[in-house]
């Protein structure tokens, strides 16, 4: 059984509207529903169905790969689901225009294809499944309004009405459906609440798989946690210095309050930055006359992303997003982003725009004070000017070791905080230890300091630009010296090399692959279309038309067997068909699969007048229909007169 007329079209329209591909939806709907008006059907063999399914499979994997490399994972996954109606459209098309009621199971399985011969095994009418795909795919979008639920209700209602059981009156059906819709409505209201409750319980586990954005309000450090830090090759940025130098670091978050291994920002309020008239320039500072211009091509989270900027960023150019906002600590985030943006940042000069030191920039948690005091004594810089204090702290840490891996024995279970152990016992740790200890030590020495997270710019490519990978994530300190904020990075300079020693042997291949996929994403989102971009659509169209010709270009079968009206086959105007019509009016119609001879022989018993002329009539009719030579004019007249006399008798 297939779906009732126009239901599939309506579902495609709904999907097109929700997925913002209305034109595709309208076209698809027209093509599918035209099958209700056209009588023409194709006679697909099993092999051709196999081929159509193969096309869908290619589209499936093609779309999957394309989205994997051109979009950020989560967003790419939703887009992928939203494209399902397009991916499986060829199959739906094959179904509605096929003369066969069902598509054989083996079309969907390579295993069955080898096992079963032509025409064997059952089949499936996929129109209902395609309807389900359209419904679910329209749910992979995120335009929050009441019309989505209404639309889904309407389509589901239509579908279950077509499938209803006739033992119940329509009113019972209607009441049940209204009840189900109401129940569904209440349930869907509660589901987001359920999610936030659930997320509260298992947030870490929940979002383990996706790359996480920096939270400019809070940064949980990995201090005191066991094991190896993640060593991801994934490229997230390409940094190119267009004028002047490239910055050494790009910051994302800035924090001023430390407590229990977590850095927080006390400045939680964000304010919109006014947009310039060209709609892609965002000015952060009043003075923009510096010489440094850096181009950053970065993967962004579609909805909201924390921007990576040099410390003294003045202006962001060519950033096509909806809004950009910053907080008092000048962490900047943007909303409504493309998956990858190539923006330019004007930077350099003094840090006069940074928030001057406040009480929070001197605060030290009670539990860490004793150990900091001991370390300060060791440094012995208490009477010196601020600049020398900073230098002394840097010297102090030069004796420390960088390590990404800490065993249970090293961490142990004792009363000391991870930071105390770092300063007193292990003297080894990763950048978060160094940055945190530096900030707190400086604070102890009465130098205001803040904790900064972001990326180190280290990996230079042959082309002169820098590649930033996920494993380049870094933390450092910002100290207030002589009325200016300066970056203090006490992590041993060779930390990347240290990390590289623990890489597996295939890390090089991983890195290369990550660079290639990033290059593809850059190509996908670049504004300039290269030669590939120009010819790709034409190549695709060519391939699609070749496939369409291979699949649909053959064996059109007219299913209208009425014959006399639109028949153009030889002998279509034989008067025997008039006789057939007349006899079927008398209840002696030709049955399915009955030959003319069998049928007329059967009819003869009821119409004795046929008896004497039957043989002659049939011979002439058959010759007229099937003899390649055909019949002469006189024989044609004879056939007419024979049928005429038969018609008179009937």
């Amino acid at each position: 059984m297939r779906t009732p007329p126009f239901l599939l079209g309506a579902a495609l329209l709904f999907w097109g509207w929700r997925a913002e591909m209305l034109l595709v939806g309208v076209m698809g709907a027209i093509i599918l529903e035209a099958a209700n008006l056209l009588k023409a059907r194709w006679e697909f063999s099993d092999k051709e169905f196999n081929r159509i399914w193969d096309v869908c499979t290619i589209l499936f994997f093609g779309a999957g790969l394309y989205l994997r490399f051109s979009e950020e994972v989560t967003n790419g996954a939703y887009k992928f689901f939203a494209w399902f109606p397009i991916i499986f459209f060829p199959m739906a098309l094959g179904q509605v225009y096929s003369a066969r009621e069902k598509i054989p199971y083996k079309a969907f399985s390579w295993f069955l294809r080898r096992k079963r011969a032509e025409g064997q095994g059952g089949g499936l009418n996929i129109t209902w499944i395609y309807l389900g795909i359209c419904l679910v795919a329209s749910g992979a979008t995120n335009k929050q309004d009441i019309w989505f639920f209404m639309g889904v209700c309407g389509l589901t209602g239509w579908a279950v009405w077509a499938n209803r059981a006739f033992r119940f009156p329509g009113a019972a059906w209607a009441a049940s459906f209204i009840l189900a819709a109401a129940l569904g409505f209440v349930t869907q209201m509660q589901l987001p609440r359920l999610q936030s409750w659930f997320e509260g319980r298992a947030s870490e586990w929940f979002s383990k798989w996706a790359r996480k954005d920096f939270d400019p309000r809070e940064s949980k450090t990995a201090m005191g946690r066991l094991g190896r830090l993640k060593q991801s090759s994934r490229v997230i940025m390409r940094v190119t210095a267009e004028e002047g130098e490239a910055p050494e670091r790009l910051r994302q978050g800035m924090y001023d309050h430390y407590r229990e291994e977590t850095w927080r920002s006390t400045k939680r309020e964000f304010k919109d930055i006014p947009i310039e008239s060209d709609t892609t320039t965002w000015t952060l500072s009043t003075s923009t006359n510096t010489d440094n211009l850096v181009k950053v091509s970065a993967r962004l989270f579609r909805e909201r992303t924390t921007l990576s900027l040099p410390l003294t960023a003045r202006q962001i150019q060519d950033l096509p997003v909806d809004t950009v906002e910053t907080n008092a600590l000048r962490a900047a985030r943007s909303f409504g982003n493309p998956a990858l943006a190539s923006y330019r940042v004007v930077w350099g000069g003094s840090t006069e725009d940074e928030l001057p030191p406040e009480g929070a920039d001197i605060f030290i948690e009670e539990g860490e004070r004793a150990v900091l005091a001991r370390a300060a004594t060791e440094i012995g810089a208490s009477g010196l000017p601020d600049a020398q204090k900073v230098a002394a702290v840097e010297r102090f840490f030069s004796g420390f070791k960088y390590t990404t891996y800490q065993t249970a024995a090293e961490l142990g279970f004792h009363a000391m905080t991870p930071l105390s152990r770092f300063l007193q016992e292990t003297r080894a740790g990763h950048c978060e230890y160094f940055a945190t200890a530096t900030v707190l030590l400086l604070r102890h020495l009465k130098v205001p300091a803040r904790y900064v997270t972001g990326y180190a710019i280290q990996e230079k490519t042959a082309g002169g630009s820098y590649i930033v990978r996920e494993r380049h994530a870094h933390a450092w300190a910002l100290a207030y010296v002589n009325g200016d904020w300066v970056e203090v990075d006490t992590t041993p300079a060779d930390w990347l090399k240290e990390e590289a020693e623990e890489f597996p042997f295939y890390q090089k291949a991983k890195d290369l692959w990550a660079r290639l996929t990033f290059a593809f994403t850059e190509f996908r989102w670049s504004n300039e279309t290269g030669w590939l971009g120009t010819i790709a659509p034409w190549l695709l169209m060519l391939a699609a038309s070749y496939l369409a010709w291979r699949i649909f270009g053959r064996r059109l079968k007219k299913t209208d067997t009425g014959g006399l009206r639109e028949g153009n086959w030889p002998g279509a105007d034989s008067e025997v068909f008039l006789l057939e019509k007349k006899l079927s009016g008398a209840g002696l119609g030709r049955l399915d699969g009955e030959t003319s001879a069998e049928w007329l022989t059967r009819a003869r018993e009821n119409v004795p007048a046929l008896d004497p002329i039957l043989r002659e009539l049939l011979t002439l009719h058959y010759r007229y229909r099937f003899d390649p030579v055909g019949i002469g004019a006189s024989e044609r007249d004879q056939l007419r007169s024979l049928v005429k006399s038969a018609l008179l008798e009937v």
Partner: protein
Amino acid sequence: MLRLLYRNYRFSSSLKYWARRRFTPAGWLVFGCAIMSAGIGLDTNQALAYQVFALLISVLLLSLFWTLWPAPKLRGARSLPRVGTTGAPLHYKISVTNPGKRKEASITLFEELGDPRPTYEQFRDTPEPGEQKRNAWDRFFRFYRWMWLTARNEVAEGFETRLPPLFPNKPVEAAVKIIPKRRGVLRLLGLSFAATDPFGLTRTFSSWPAPQKVLILPKRYPIPALVIPGKLEYQPGGVSLASSIGESGEFVALREYRRGDPLRHIHWKSVSKTGKLIVKEFQDEYFMRHALILDTFLADPKEDEAFEEAVSVAASFAHALNTQESLLDLLFVGPQAFCMTAGRGVGHLEQMLEILASVQPCTTREFVSLEQLVVQRIDLVSGCVCVFLGWDEARKRLVKQLKMRHIPVLVFVFWNGRGAEPQREDALEESDRFHLLQPGRVEEVLARL
């Protein structure tokens, strides 16, 4: 542990059975879409699919709630054919009556074919053929054994049949199809009538006990036109074996009694007229008579697959040999030695197939009893088809005996691939054929004959 596994399989297969019957295909689709939209809508901030999930799950829940409304009580009576064939669809009609007061519609009909799940003893003791080749994991969990046993216990494959609207007390006829899977007596237990909820997603059932039996003939393989060599043999009874009344066809004349004439040939009417012993004289009959020897002596009673195939081979020959011109004797040993003759109007082929439908492996006697049975009739036979389950000395001796009388033979030996491959016996002449058959690959050998 084994018992735990058994319970687990038993439970999960009953769950599967329940879910399969309870939900219509549309119900499954709604369920599938709900699961898929739940997956996509897991993060409610990112996608609206959770709303699709909420609606579909509510629709499903409501339709499950409707299953509390009982299905209508209906009655049905089958008109069964006398026999069916294993593996071939069995079509028949069921007349369904609605004894209630209101019209019923959207009802589907199922045949109750019994529970195919194996018993614990079966599960414990019956290994799947070739189980020793499976890996340790599969051998431990015995899942494939469970699947194989379940498939083996399935007597027939049923299909759901949609019924037309049923008006009160007006019987309607429904055309039903099942595909029998085992030969022998197929017991149909009853009829189940399924009614759906208003949305058509879930079903409720009512049942009507209608125990009935139908004989299922063995599966037959296509066999190419086959001529078994052999010469015409004198058949002393002539076609007097004919099932038709009297013996008129072959009657030639009356003559006086000579010593040695069978007493049953005495024509008593003439005796009373003439006072002498008069006997009827018959025309001597010469025609071909073939023996089809079916070996029922299974070495390992657990490996009955070969036996089933052997019966199928015998049935295929019984069906394929031209019985218009020749006689065919089916010889096998069941609880007793058995010979059945068909052909030239004597007996019916169908009867032979019916007998083959009920043949069971012989456990109480020795192979010698089959040998004796063959030797008794060896003089009448002009050609012989032997279907053996093994190739040991006793069987070779039987073939030798046949060859000593120069009877052409066609020998099939079943071999499960284990042990030494059976070799062609030297006693066989060049024109005799010797074929190895492996269970599951019989068709290809027969097709190449």
